[in-house]
């Protein structure tokens, strides 16, 4: 398995390279520059800035310059947050985003899984319909609607929880953002698990387990749930991507200093290096999650071989 993981990681390098190259030229080809917004700089200052950041050199030279720095692990200085390097910004933002995303993913899998199982075991009852309706609601209502509403109701009207801010990761500050971020994923996971669980419960090998008088918990957990988990495991990859996208919104609404916010402000301000840094981090995450999914899948399903 180690060789498989290693091979996959090596195989991801071309993908990452493609992403870096694509993003680099996409940003640079676009009109505008990082210093356009500053109140009409004097031409000499402008030229100086451009020289400091190598913006006066030909594009391909800048590209190789960037790649060279990247190979040494240097993401360069931020154009807009002038006192910080991109590495520093990401190092401060990443823990926030990862805490948020990790908790949301956990919540989504646990709550979604439990809801899905309950609905499947009580198929076509009131509980089942309630879960389906809630899930449809969760998928339908975008989190940029849910998040402000949550903040409005629990933060402003009821004043139970802080309506925003990071506050050094104080748990009370995390509750609303994590729920808002996890809600759509909970819905998807619940629907997925319900569907595959129903199918698993109807399968021939579960009939065998019942015919052999195995206790209910064994039938449900050992024989049905493991098979039913497989689609949910394959969903972890897309879910992680969904959490990344979701966090852009959530971080903005709740005013959290994560990397999602850096991405948007970076893009809006033409902060080339910051945008590149976020794109690279995100791409690495997506690659890692896809790998994680495949490894988990192979662990759960003996029919899958590492090849």
């Amino acid at each position, binding site marked *: 398995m180690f060789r498989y993981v290693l091979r996959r990681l090596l195989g991801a390098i071309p993908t990452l390279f493609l992403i870096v190259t694509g993003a680099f030229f996409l940003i640079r080809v676009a009109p505008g520059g990082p210093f356009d917004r500053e109140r009409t700089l004097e031409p000499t200052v402008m030229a100086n800035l451009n020289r400091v950041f190598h913006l006066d050199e030909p594009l391909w030279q800048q590209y190789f310059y960037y790649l060279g720095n990247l190979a040494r692990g240097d993401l360069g200085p931020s154009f807009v947050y002038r006192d910080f390097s991109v590495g520093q910004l990401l190092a401060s933002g990443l823990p926030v985003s990862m805490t948020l995303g990790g908790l949301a993913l956990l919540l989504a899998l646990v709550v979604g899984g439990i809801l899905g199982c309950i609905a499947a075991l009580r*198929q076509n009852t009131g509980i089942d319909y309630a879960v389906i309706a809630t899930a449809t609601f969760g998928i339908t209502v975008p989190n940029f609607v849910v998040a402000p509403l949550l903040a409005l109701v629990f933060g402003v009207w009821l004043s139970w929880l802080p309506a925003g801010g990071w506050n050094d990761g104080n748990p009370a500050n995390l509750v609303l953002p994590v729920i808002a971020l996890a809600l759509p994923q909970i819905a998807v996971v619940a629907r997925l698990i319900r569907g595959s669980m129903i199918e698993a419960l109807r399968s*021939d090998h579960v009939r*065998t387990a*019942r*015919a052999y*008088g195995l*206790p209910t918990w064994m039938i449900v957990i*050992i024989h049905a749930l*493991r098979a039913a988990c497989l689609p949910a495991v394959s969903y972890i990859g897309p879910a992680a991507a969904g959490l990344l996208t979701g966090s852009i919104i959530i971080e903005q609404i709740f005013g959290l200093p994560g990397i999602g916010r850096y991405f948007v402000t970076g893009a809006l301000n033409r902060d080339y290096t910051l945008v590149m840094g976020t794109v690279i981090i995100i791409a690495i995450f997506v690659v890692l999650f896809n790998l994680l999914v495949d490894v988990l899948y192979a662990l759960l399903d*003996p029919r899958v071989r590492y090849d």
Partner: protein
Amino acid sequence: MTQPRSPLFELDDIHVSFATPDGPVEAVRGVSMQIARGETVAVVGESGSGKSQAMMAAMGLLAGNGQVTGAARFNGDNLIGQSKRALDRIRGAKITMIFQEPMTSLDPLYTIERQIAEPLMVHGGLSRRKARARALDLLELVRIPNAKARLGAYPHELSGGQRQRVMIAMALANDPDLLIADEPTTALDVTIQAEILGLLADLQTRLGMAILFITHDLGIVQALADRVYVMRHGVVVEHGPTDRIFAAPETAYTTMLLDSEPTGRKAPVAPEAETVMDARGVTVTFTTPAGFLSRPSAPIHAVRAVNLSLRRGETLGVVGESGSGKSTLGRAVLQLLPSEGRVSFLGTSISGLDRSAMRPYRKSLQMVFQDPYGSLSPRMTVGEIITEGLLVHAPELSAKDRDARARAALQEVDLDPAVRNRFPHEFSGGQRQRIAIARALVLHPTLIVLDEPTSALDRSVQKQIVTLLRDLQIRHAMSYIFISHDLAVVRALADHVMVMRDGTVVEAGSTAQIFDDPTSNYTRRLMRAAFDLSTVLSEQSVART
């Protein structure tokens, strides 16, 4: 054999109904039967007779929309209406079951050791270590080769026959009093079937449990069962000792069932009939398509250097077990698969012709497929399906002419021409197969390749299709290549028979010669497993003791 006084297991007026969107459907309507300790009883019926559902209901295994009334008594205790907990003291311990599909009936995600051990631990209270040792004993009991190494195997790593042996090992784990076997060998080849049935019979004499066979195969019944219940449309139409039922059936339905093995032989064709198809050295090699970066895997030789020759009005039966390459051969001679070798049709070579070059010949070379549910396009009407070939080969026909041809073809296959505007999903399996035959007939072909056309059908329907095919052949002087694993059907239809195994021809000759005096060991084994199951089983048990 007299009726036992206190039966081990007894069904009393079992009714099963299913709630469907179109209202409740009664699958079982008042079934009663008894099994004594150590007895072997068979429940026989065609698909839809309710034979499996009655047992599932008794065991509390009905689908969610199923409802059961009546009583199912095991040693006098009624199982129906019992709590799951009470039921579970009997299921898997006193009564065990094996099912038709050993692949899906075993959990694909766990080793066979674990699956055999689970009922042992649950019912026998064995420790994991003891259960493991017992699982090994059981695998040896069901004669899985190299049992110790096989303990850690997953179901997909075993062959179909081995998987069914694992199921049997599971069933025997807690020394049950009754084993219910629901079509245990239907998914297996005949030679494997004989081995599995032999194993079951042998285990029964050694361990003394009662066995209840649910089957559609009268050969199994005759070879194994002490008594028989015949079911139809959810009721038992007749029951009694096997010998009596086979010798003197009391109801017309049982008579029909016993009689439904295709009978009659094909009349030989005149010796001067022209040769329609001649194929030399047909070879088909599959390579798994290479991926983007992966190398193609080792080639598989599905068919190796097969010769065949067929005259007008003749039928060639191609026989073999699954994986023998018989279907591939049928497609290869019609140039539906890339193949090597030389194939000529009415003296013209057609080997290697591409799609468009082949088109003029397609009119005369037709094919009928196995699955009557899959071979008709679900979104076309029967009329459109039948006349599709005319669009290609007789584009000059008007819509009215095509319609007339469709009506004629439907009449030929004994279907009401009024069904032209219906869709395939509205028909039963036998009717669909008639439609598929009509689709071939409408072009007035010279040769039809029939690929297992009767395998998905009940025996009684099979017989009708066989009769139909024979009549049509005489009426239109067509030649058939009839591909089947079902020897009885081949015997009733073929002039010549070719026995295939692993892509090569084991033996070929006239039907009488192959069936009455086979020369190769393999053919002999095949024939005996199919036609003389009782002898095979008794020989197996003699050989073992």
